[in-house]
Structures are given as structure tokens and as C-alpha cells.
């Protein structure tokens, strides 16, 4: 049977963009596809290799996090926040703790603030290291760059396990501080890992930054215009790659970030290459923050004396706590009616909102570029679907 006798059922023949004969092809990429970083689907309409329409479809990992949290006590939601962005559970804990602390007016001791910054920036390091590894994997560099990144990530995860008891599901922050103090020798080990990290970054830059294939695949690909990024509410490295100077660590100065001087790397073109480089540069700044925090950390209590584990009831009111997570602005919005569980619990996930401009970035590019562009957005489906 020749190909021409096959009936085209759902494909409408249309002239292609350049006027030649042909028809559009609808491809469903995902939900089980190695490039989608989880269970995520893209309905792509193709004209040859070129994307003419793209619809992100998500919700496969929906587990009703927000509604479950309204049935739980405030503390009971803390382990569930680990499962939002499971690469950086410390960041989720921090944002949630920040929102509850605002709601209940709890002070955090100075040492706990330092611990939060140390664990948070370590998390940022491992998240960005992973992300650039995955991005290379998406481009077809199967193995080597990802494994180098994972090797470094594992050292940080070991540190987190020694401190919190779990590699990824840390469940570490509490309202008014942190759960446990550093075990003996932890800080020295963390200092060692941090001091060795720039060597990995240098290596990684030598490995890839000048690579001709990488440049051909990323420069000018997936350009996100500055105005669109701002209007769509994009945050994090995605926004900064477009050249918008917006880092919540600088804007809000939550915690004690005002004591640290660090630079915010900014991109110029807003393409995939800029997003990649922004992450590398951000890691260098994080190393600086970590080194200063580990030097300056005072001794003292790690929990507010008035903080309660059981029977916690904040007074009625509402609060929004936000932090600069590695993926963007992570916010928790809580309304309390004075009962032990929140009346309303809402998460503002950076991954989901950064995904909304996916079509605008992909139009006109090839299918293979879609994979790379999606990789550069840095999504975690646990957070997108909640």
C-alpha cells in the first residue's frame, strides 16, 4: 500500500509557510518522554520540522496539594512542601516557613537565619548544577556533562542528609527556626565542599562554554523578549537572562540577605545560551554568599523560644511569603481564620508561570530546539502540577 492511499483523518492539509505543498503534522510529545523532565506533554503542530503551534498540557502529577494543606495543621503541610520542587525542598520549606512566620509574627534567631542561607544556597548550587547537566543531556550530550554535574550534586546531597536526615525530602525548616543544629564537623565539611565548588565550575566552563556545537544549538534559540517576560510574570534566571534586574534576594532582602554583597548576573539576548550562562554565574555568586555565611555564623539558639510544635494557631489574617528559589519567585499565600489549619493555602510556583511563555519561545524553531528550550526553562513537574 502506498502512502498516498492512507486516509488523512485528523490532519487538515494546508499550504506550508513557504508556500510549498504539504500538510501540518500534530505530534504529542510526552507525557512519557525523556525530554519533558517528568510527566508533561506538549501538543506540537509541525510544518515539516518547524513548530507552528505548541500547547503545553500538564496536570498529570496533580495531587491536590493546596486542598490537602487546608485539612492539615500548619506543621503538617511542611513535609508536603518538600514534594513540590523536589530538587530544592529546602527552598520550599523556607518559603512556607516565611509565610507562616509573617502570618503569626514569629521572629527567627540569627543563627537560624544563617543556617537557612547556608542550606538554601547549597540547594541553589545543586539545582543549577543539575539543570545545566539536564540541558546538555537534552542537547544530546548524553552522559558526561550530566554525570559531572551529578557528581557535585551528590556531595551537597550528602551534606543535606547529614544535617536533615534525608537527601531530598529534607523537611528541615520550622516556624521560628530550624529543626536541628549542625552535627559535629558538618560546617567544616560544608566549607570544604563549597571551597571545591569553583573548581567544578571552571572545569564545566572549559568543558562547554566555548563548545561550537553548544553555541550553534543555543545562541539565538528560544529568545524571550524583555517586555513579554515582564508582562507574563516570568521570574528567576529566565527573567534575568532577558536583562531585567529583578532578584527577590535584592528586592525584598528577606532573612538577612541585606548583609551579603553579591552581584546579580544579567543576560543580554534572552536566549537559551544566556539562560545557561546565568546559572553558571549565579553559582559563583552563591559560593561567595556561602563562604561569607559560613565564616560569620554566630552561635546561639536555632529556634524561637515562643515557637510551638503542637497546637499552633496563628491569629486570623493573611500573609504572602516569597523567596528567590533557584527557579524563580516561590510564594506561599496563606489565610488564617484562627483555627489550627489554614483557611486558604496557595502556592505560587515559579515553574508553572515560567512555562506559560513556552509557545512564544518555540514558534518558528525546530522540534529539536523545543526540547532544548524546555530544558532551559527549568521546570519540575511536582511544582507545576502540585
Amino acid at each position, binding site marked *: 500500500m502506498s502512502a498516498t492511499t492512507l486516509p488523512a483523518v485528523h490532519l487538515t492539509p494546508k499550504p506550508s509557510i513557504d508556500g510549498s505543498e504539504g500538510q501540518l503534522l500534530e505530534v504529542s510529545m510526552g507525557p512519557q518522554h525523556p525530554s519533558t523532565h517528568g510527566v508533561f506533554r506538549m501538543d506540537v503542530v509541525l510544518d515539516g520540522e518547524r513548530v507552528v503551534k505548541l500547547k503545553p498540557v500538564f496536570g498529570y502529577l496533580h495531587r491536590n496539594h493546596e486542598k490537602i494543606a487546608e485539612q492539615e495543621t500548619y506543621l503538617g503541610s511542611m513535609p508536603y512542601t518538600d514534594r513540590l520542587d523536589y530538587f530544592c525542598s529546602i527552598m520550599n520549606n523556607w518559603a512556607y516557613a516565611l509565610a507562616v512566620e509573617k502570618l503569626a509574627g514569629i521572629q527567627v534567631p540569627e543563627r537560624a537565619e544563617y543556617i537557612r542561607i547556608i542550606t538554601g544556597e547549597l540547594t541553589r548550587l545543586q539545582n543549577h548544577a543539575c539543570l545545566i547537566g539536564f540541558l546538555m543531556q537534552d542537547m544530546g550530550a548524553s552522559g558526561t556533562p550530566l554525570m559531572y554535574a551529578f557528581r557535585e550534586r551528590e556531595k551537597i546531597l550528602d551534606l543535606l542528609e547529614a544535617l536533615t*536526615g534525608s537527601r531530598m525530602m529534607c523537611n528541615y525548616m520550622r516556624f521560628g527556626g530550624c529543626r536541628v543544629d549542625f552535627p559535629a564537623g558538618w560546617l567544616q565539611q560544608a566549607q570544604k565542599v563549597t571551597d*571545591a565548588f569553583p573548581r567544578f565550575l571552571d572545569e564545566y566552563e572549559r568543558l562547554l562554554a*566555548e563548545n*561550537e556545537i553548544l553555541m550553534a544549538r543555543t545562541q539565538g534559540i528560544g529568545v524571550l523578549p524583555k517586555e513579554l517576560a515582564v508582562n507574563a510574570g516570568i521570574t528567576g534566571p529566565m527573567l534575568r537572562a532577558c536583562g531585567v534586574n529583578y532578584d527577590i534576594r535584592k528586592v525584598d532582602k528577606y532573612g538577612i540577605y541585606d548583609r551579603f554583597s553579591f552581584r546579580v548576573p544579567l543576560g543580554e539576548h534572552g536566549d537559551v545560551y544566556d539562560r545557561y550562562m546565568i546559572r553558571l554565574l549565579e553559582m559563583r555568586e552563591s559560593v561567595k554568599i556561602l563562604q561569607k555565611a559560613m565564616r560569620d555564623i554566630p552561635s546561639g539558639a536555632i529556634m524561637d523560644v515562643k515557637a510551638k510544635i503542637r497546637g499552633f494557631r496563628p491569629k486570623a489574617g493573611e500573609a504572602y511569603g516569597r523567596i528567590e528559589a533557584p527557579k524563580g519567585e516561590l510564594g506561599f499565600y496563606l489565610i488564617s481564620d484562627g483555627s489550627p489549619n489554614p483557611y486558604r493555602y496557595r502556592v505560587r510556583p515559579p515553574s508553572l508561570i515560567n512555562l506559560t511563555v513556552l509557545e512564544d519561545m518555540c514558534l518558528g524553531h525546530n522540534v529539536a530546539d523545543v526540547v532544548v528550550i524546555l530544558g532551559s526553562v527549568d521546570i519540575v513537574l511536582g511544582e507545576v502540577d502540585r
Partner: protein
Amino acid sequence: MFGEGLLKGMAETARNFLGSYVSKDRLTTVQFPEERVAPIEASRNFPFLVYDGGDWQQGMRCVSCLICEKECPPKCIFIEKSTDKKPDATGKPQFYPAVFDIDVSVCMSCQICVEVCPFDAIKMDVAFELSTDDRFDGLLWNKERLAKSNEYYGRIHPTEAAAVDAHLVEGRAKLEAKSKPIAPAAHPVSGVTE
């Protein structure tokens, strides 16, 4: 020159490859079932019930207060309180759990039961090879299976267990000092402040 960046990258992989023969830092792979990494003291996986002494039924610290059942976020703990009392390790009559089940498939090892327990009766284990082919009883652990001795706790989390033991001894001493009949012309009991 075109291709220079590629060659630089290749040099880096060569450095890593050759370096893996001399530097442990570059060769981190552990051949898991044969080799194992050193256990990390703080790691936690699944809770167990602590008992004192040699007999798990006699020495179980749990007094069936139902706090952990209530606070457990995924509600994986099921307790039935006893109707009678029996003496605990110190000889004081206490309620005990007639049934204490934890569903392994639901538990997410978040440690909140440990944090809320006022009696240091439930602690986190480090065992992680818990898979089974029996998806009914094999995943619902009863109190016999959950019970582990205080010595075991001391072995897996030495620092934490030492602190808990000291805290318990201090608590008992305080309790004894309080329950003593007031001696004639009593001196103020030192160390007890209300």
C-alpha cells in the same frame, strides 16, 4: 579556530578520566549491593517503637496518647488504646497500645511523629531495604514488628540517643524528687522550679 572549544572540552574529559585513577574525588561511584557507603548518622527512614529492657511488651514506652496518630500528615498510624493499665519499665501503671500499626506504603518518613511524641517512644530507623512482595500484611507493620530496643536506637543514632537517655534519666529523677513525701523540716528541693 573552529573546533577549538570542542578540543578544550575533550581535554577536560581526558583530565577527568585520567584523574579518576589517582583522585578519589573524581571517582565517586560505589558499586552498591557489593559495596556500601558509610551510614550517615542523621539519616531517617521509617519510624519504630522504642522499648526499654529485654521484653518488648513489658518495656514499650508508648502510652497510647494518640498524639502521633493525630499529627501524622498522611495519617498512616493506627492506634487502639488499651482498656487496662500495666506497669511500664519503671513500674508505673500506664495505658499501652492494644494495636499500633503503621502503613509502610503511606508513611513518608517526615519525622513529625518523632517530634510530637512527649515520651520519646517513637524514633526514626535507618533501614531502607523494606520492599516486600506481600502488599497487604507485609506493608502494614504491627507493634511487634515495629518494636525495637533502646540499645538498637543507641547503635543507629548514638548522639541523639545519648541526649534522649540523659533527658529521660533527668525527668525520672525530677519525678522521684517530686513524689517523695515532704520530709520533716524540709529543705527546698533543689533543681525543681515551678
